[in-house]
């Protein structure tokens, strides 16, 4: 079966420091990969998505970047964190084909607090 893991689960970082959140998917190949952010409150905002290695689409201009160095690995980064980067970050994946194609499955999430 397929599983998705992201880490770290919790992170407290000072303003201006770098960020690296990692996510890996197991049990599948060539998935679509996503990074979402959920600020205090409720809505989920799509940050980046990737349909293949090295292919990254950005949904909103911001202080963050994403990379996909391997088929099942997705990394969210920042060179210098801002206070506004605080939030709950969710990595997700979806199969491209099959009976559950386009269904998105989420990781456990990472809490980021920028202080």
């Amino acid at each position: 079966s397929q599983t998705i893991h992201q880490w770290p689960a919790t992170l407290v970082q000072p303003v201006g420091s770098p960020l690296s959140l990692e996510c890996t998917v197991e049990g599948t190949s060539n998935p679509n990969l996503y990074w979402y952010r959920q600020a205090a409150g409720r809505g989920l905002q799509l940050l980046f998505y990737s349909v293949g290695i090295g292919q990254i689409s950005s949904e909103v201009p911001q202080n963050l970047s994403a990379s996909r160095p391997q088929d099942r690995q997705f990394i969210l980064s920042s060179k210098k964190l801002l206070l506004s980067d605080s939030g709950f970050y969710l990595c997700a994946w979806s199969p491209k084909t099959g009976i559950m194609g386009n269904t998105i499955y989420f990781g456990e999430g990472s809490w980021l607090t920028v202080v």
Partner: protein
Amino acid sequence: AQTVTQSQPEMSVQEAETVTLSCTYDTSESDYYLFWYKQPPSRQMILVIRQEAYKQQNATENRFSVNFQKAAKSFSLKISDSQLGDAAMYFCAYSAIYNQGGKLIFGQGTELSVKP
């Protein structure tokens, strides 16, 4: 651009009763997917149910069922025999089938509380 609207920020239901959560969406596409996700206090997003727009039959998963009205662009979630474990934030979401990498567009969520 596609949008998803959940007009009920909060809902409450008595244990063992039935509750319906509302969702409307806007799209010019004819084929797409709709989803309901549950987010308990742990914050992990859990898939509840999935509906394919080209299927007229409403999806069901145990105590969870949807009322999909394609012409009205409405997609409500009915939870029968509510249990304490159903208390969570529920999100309605839309996904285009073609292009766009299958990304989800979420509504703002409905917080469901279950009273014992």
